[in-house]
């Protein structure tokens, strides 16, 4: 479990970039932090992985303050994916990159090699490939795999899909989704609200170093006040739903609740057929009332 107790943080000791933040992330949660550039999201990630210590308050990992843990101890619990994979790839081959997390802490050996082999097979990597010659999406996957291979309890992802095309984004996020399904806590910063809507179960909206909202993904992303304060745009289907739901005739119908393509397409089709049936009934009623022709 991750706990923030009245945490404030600053890079220069003066200007606070995080102000009195308190929140709890239970084991197995999938949380997305959303907000504008400079809202304090990445700072929050750095506090979780211990790269940054709070100037006041406490960040606790499983009840232990990060200030009482060595960086290596935090790293065993928390895997961190940088926005730019090139900041963490440092080995000459894919295989060595995946092994590095083990050997760096003196845990190399047959067990580690078996884990790496399994990871190479799962991701379909070329074990002998030179990482920096891989394309951006594959480098991002490699950086993610080198974290997953150590089976951390918590994975922190800073903008995991930036610069990736649709297929690469889907590959990375499916791997993250599998990791969460296997029990890992996932905490990510993500500007792509479609990715947030597809994967995160909870959204924490931030602005100017404070939390403005925290709750189930679509509850948060449907609150106009939250969207305004954190300068967020909801996923497009949710936005369509909110526009339609503002019409008194459609408020309370399934279109006003739909957040996915499937839900919205089904809701619109159902309302369309209902409207068609009503029109048919009206025509039939008009037909029954129409004056009979002839003498």
């Amino acid at each position, binding site marked *: 479990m991750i706990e923030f107790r009245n945490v404030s943080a600053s890079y220069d000791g003066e200007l606070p970039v995080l102000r009195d933040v308190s929140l709890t992330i239970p084991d197995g949660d999938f949380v997305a932090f959303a*907000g*504008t*550039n*400079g809202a304090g999201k990445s700072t929050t990630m750095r506090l979780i992985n211990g790269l940054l210590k709070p100037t006041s308050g406490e960040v606790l990992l499983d009840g232990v303050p990060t200030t009482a843990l060595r960086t290596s101890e935090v790293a065993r619990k928390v895997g961190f994916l940088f926005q730019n994979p090139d900041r963490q790839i440092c080995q000459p081959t894919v295989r060595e990159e995946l092994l590095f997390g083990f050997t760096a802490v003196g845990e190399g050996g047959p067990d580690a090699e078996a884990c790496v082999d399994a990871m190479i097979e799962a991701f379909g990597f070329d074990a002998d490939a030179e990482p920096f010659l891989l*394309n*951006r*999406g594959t480098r991002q996957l490699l950086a993610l795999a080198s974290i997953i291979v150590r089976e951390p309890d918590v994975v922190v992802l800073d903008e995991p899909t*930036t*610069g*990736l*095309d*649709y*297929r*690469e984004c889907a590959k990375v996020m499916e791997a993250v989704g599998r990791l969460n399904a296997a029990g890992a806590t996932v905490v990510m910063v993500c*500007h792509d*609200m*479609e990715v947030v809507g597809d994967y995160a179960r909870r959204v924490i909206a931030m602005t100017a170093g404070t939390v403005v909202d925290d709750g189930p993904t679509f509850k948060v992303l449907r609150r106009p006040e939250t969207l305004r304060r954190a*300068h*967020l*745009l909801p*996923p*497009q*289907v949710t*936005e*369509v739903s909110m*526009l*339609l739901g503002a*019409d008194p005739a*459609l408020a309370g119908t399934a*279109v006003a609740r739909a957040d996915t*393509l499937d839900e*919205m*397409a089904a809701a*619109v*089709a159902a*309302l*369309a057929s209902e*409207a068609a049936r009503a029109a048919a009934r009206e025509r039939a009623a008009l037909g029954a009332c129409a004056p009979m022709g002839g003498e």
Partner: protein
Amino acid sequence: MIEFRDFSFRYREGDAPVVRDVTLTIPDGCFVGITGAAGSGKSTLTYAVNGIIPHCYPGDFYGAVTVEGMDTVETSLTDLSRAVGSVCQDIDSQMVSSIVEDEVLYGLENFGVPRDEVEARLADALELMGIADLRHRAIDSLSGGQKQKVAVASIIALRPRVLVLDEPTAELDPASSAAVFDLLATYAREHGTTVIVVEQKIALLAEHADMLVIVDGGRVRFAGAPGEVLEHSAELLELGVNCPRSTSLVNRLRASGLYAGPAARDVAEAAAACREVIA
């Protein structure tokens, strides 16, 4: 006008052409969005416009690319850069100064802009990008998003007739990304500037571009008004391009025979289509 005629290009160290048989005409003042999967040749297409190929990256150049009548192979990079302003994908590689003001001044001075025009151009560009307050800030102290705005301001100050931007919003949050696209579209309309943007955020392109170009395996697979191109959502998905969700929603209604109107470019058009179906 920008014209690609049977254009193909193979980088000297490459085994195969990265762009093949591209024939495309971009009218003056058009806002063009280029998208496609990673490695599809999007950036190479723009390098042919600003002259980076073949002047900086040599290779086998087939066919012809002309910008306002200038053949980009025959014209010097200096002359081309007076017409075409470029914002790189890697912003840090573009920055040459340590202070925001100096960064914008660098281009103006090098282009020999008359001294009495410099201040107005500098102030206008910073104002337009909403970064007037950053004028005296050290570039090192800026966020990635702020640097992107400085890079765009530095180029806009030069008032190029063609503006080429490679993923200009990669580091920006959604609200800032939308704001940059709004600014670019307004600027292009007001100045008659042709804008070519390479971008993965297809929802932004769908909403702002006059022409959408989909590249796959170095070939242009689709080029046209966003509403026409986005009708092909299933084929686009095959090419690794995911339509905006609002487009996908309306395309589903079209496929099921409920809606006969055009593909939706944005949320407002999708909501209007849904209302029409329900009514």
